[in-house]
């Protein structure tokens, strides 16, 4: 592919003296599934937060679809087409599932304050259309019939699904999933893996995963990047990563390798 969808060059984040992400060059090609793995505290989520504008990088740049996005506020990233979920589910817990998805559509809707008060025909049409699409998205994400359910009352798996539905509502080109299968049982994990593959297949989305479950990572990824202490220590096809000496060291410790 000619130009990667997402490209970072020398992306760096320091918190005081701590280097959380250390000059990472990274790409996500279009319609690919890339996984980001690494031990706890390796800087994966920090890296994610820089890709979505939540953190501003100390140095380096983020390009999305050829555009320099460095230092832009989060909603610009969403507008350009990066949707995300959170490691610790961050739904709008007291809103219904439908409303959660509707908030996700915020950037794709236009109705302004005055139109909302007058409720012009355009806004009526837009709202009706948004509600219809939101219902479809909920159904697509496996939440049929749970439209009016309050976020907090959903089961854990459904909350994860709703987060994905909400992210999809922003109509992303790239979907960032931060440990989406954490806390899921093997069956749910398998379903979810299939769902991610389907997203790429049917919707043509690129997906960037942070994941600890190696079955998911190895099963679905085109490419895997490994972070350790904020540094990129390996990158490549899943099979190659499994055999990589530095990756094994990072996960199991040097002692396990030398003895």
């Amino acid at each position: 592919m000619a130009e990667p969808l997402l490209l970072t060059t020398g992306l760096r984040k320091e918190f005081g003296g701590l280097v959380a992400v250390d000059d990472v060059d990274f790409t996500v090609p279009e319609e690919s599934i890339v996984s980001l793995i690494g031990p706890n505290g390796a800087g994966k989520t920090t890296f994610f937060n820089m890709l979505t504008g939540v953190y501003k990088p100390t140095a380096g740049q983020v390009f999305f679809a050829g555009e320099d996005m460095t230092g832009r506020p989060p909603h610009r990233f969403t507008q350009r087409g990066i949707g995300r979920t959170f490691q610790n589910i961050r739904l709008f817990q007291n809103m219904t599932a439908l409303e959660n998805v509707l908030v996700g559509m915020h950037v794709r809707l236009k109705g302004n304050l005055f139109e909302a008060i007058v409720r012009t025909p355009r806004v009526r049409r837009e709202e009706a259309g948004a509600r219809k699409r939101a219902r479809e998205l909920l159904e697509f994400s496996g939440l049929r019939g749970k439209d009016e359910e309050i976020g907090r009352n959903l089961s854990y798996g459904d909350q994860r699904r709703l987060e994905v539905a909400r992210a999809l509502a922003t109509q992303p080109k790239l979907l960032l999933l931060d440990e989406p299968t954490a806390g899921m049982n093997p069956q749910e994990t398998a379903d979810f893996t299939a769902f991610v593959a389907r997203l790429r297949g049917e919707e043509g989305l690129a997906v960037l995963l942070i994941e600890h479950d190696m079955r998911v990572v190895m099963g679905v990824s085109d490419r895997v990047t490994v972070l350790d202490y904020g540094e990129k220590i390996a990158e490549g096809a899943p099979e190659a990563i499994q055999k990589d000496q530095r990756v094994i060291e990072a996960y199991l410790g040097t002692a396990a390798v030398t003895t």
Partner: protein
Amino acid sequence: MRRRIGEAVSRAWWAALSVVGLTPRRWERLPRLARRAIVTVLWLGIGLVLVWKFGVWKTSALAVAAVVVLLVVPPYRRLGVRGTPVGAWIVPAAVLAIAVAYPYYNTSMPQLPIFGPFPQMSTMVGMGVFAMMALGLNFVVGYAGLLDLGYVAFYAMGSYMAGWFASSQFAKQNVSFGAVDLLPGTTGFHFSIWLVLLMAGIATAIIGVLIGLPTLRLRGDYLAIVTLGFGEIMPQIARNGDSLFGTGFNLTNGTGGITPIDGPGFGHTLHHYLRLPANYLNLGENADRAFFWTALALVLVTIFCSARLRDSRLGRAWIAIREDEVAAAAMGVPLMRTKTWAYATGAFFGGVAGAYYASYNGGAFPDEFFFNISVFILCMVILGGMGNIWGVIFGACFLEYLDREGLANIGAWLNGRFGPGGSLAEVWHKPLDVPLYEFGIFGAILVIVMLFRPEGLIPSSRRAAEFHEGVHDQPLYDASA
């Protein structure tokens, strides 16, 4: 402790009821309608007995009771005509009709125990104005979840807009547009009050944006402090604005305030064709009536805008920000712009209310814009129920009533019954001036509400859940562990 008190009360209650053969199980088996009817009639009965025994009885009390039963008991919500739920409109429409007709029956109402007579018309105007301001603040505090301790700045701005454009403050100018009953030779800007209301709203919204842009980046407590600062700056400008920056330009007329401000009116043409009052100030003792109806109309417009915005794209974004700012931003909600809209909308209604009140009072005086008014309006929102339109209106009406009449009435009752004229006269020599302790009493009300019902008296269901279950300040699931 709260739960233990509740349990004790409920146990005592059922023990008393079991004497008449009513057990919780039998009660549950009664149809819902019957249960509601019994509870309502019971409460009303207690109320009527109290009025009869301790208040001043009038036959109209029975009519009031009948109206309450009719409003509360029947399940109107289920009514519908060909699928359209007209039933949901019956109660609001009836309440509106009762409010509109208030001037015609308020003098024939019974006197309540402790609280005394029903509010006068001037108090009703104040209630309308403060309901509007509280609804405006509700955009900021209730919907977007931003703490604003300087709302009085918008009230002041609105009042001074009326002062500038509907009085003789700028004597060098001589511009009039739609103002009613101007004397020949009057100088200054004199615009029609209706236009001034709109201008005040817009100007105040612009001030809201100007204040909001630098401050709304701040979070939580910091924002509260900065808004507090702005709330202090505005009245200071008003107080010292009689020679702006030492140039001798008299903007606000200093501590004297700007007075007189023109009254509203529809002019003689509209009066001729539609019988609308030409000039409210010429109505004599019926003036308060006209002011009250106009305030009611303004409140209705505010309610309409509140409801429409709450259910719109923008309203959803406000609530999303209140629930979880980071997630809202990640979902594409522009934080600054969305918060600024909340601020500007709230400011708009504060400005309109301020201008209307200035026109009603006939002047804008810097003494009216102290910090305590900000807290007063905030109390209304919190007491009534943040985020709920009806709750906020109730809070505003109740507190404004206490401020204007209620506390004085309560004081008179206390002094008469126990004080110098009553049973404890031997130890209680001097009459107690209850309104003097107003803000202590409001503070106590606020503390009690926060302890026992933090979501307010009539909360929005969502806000109630947030208070009891918490919002997403802390990660709920820490999956990395």
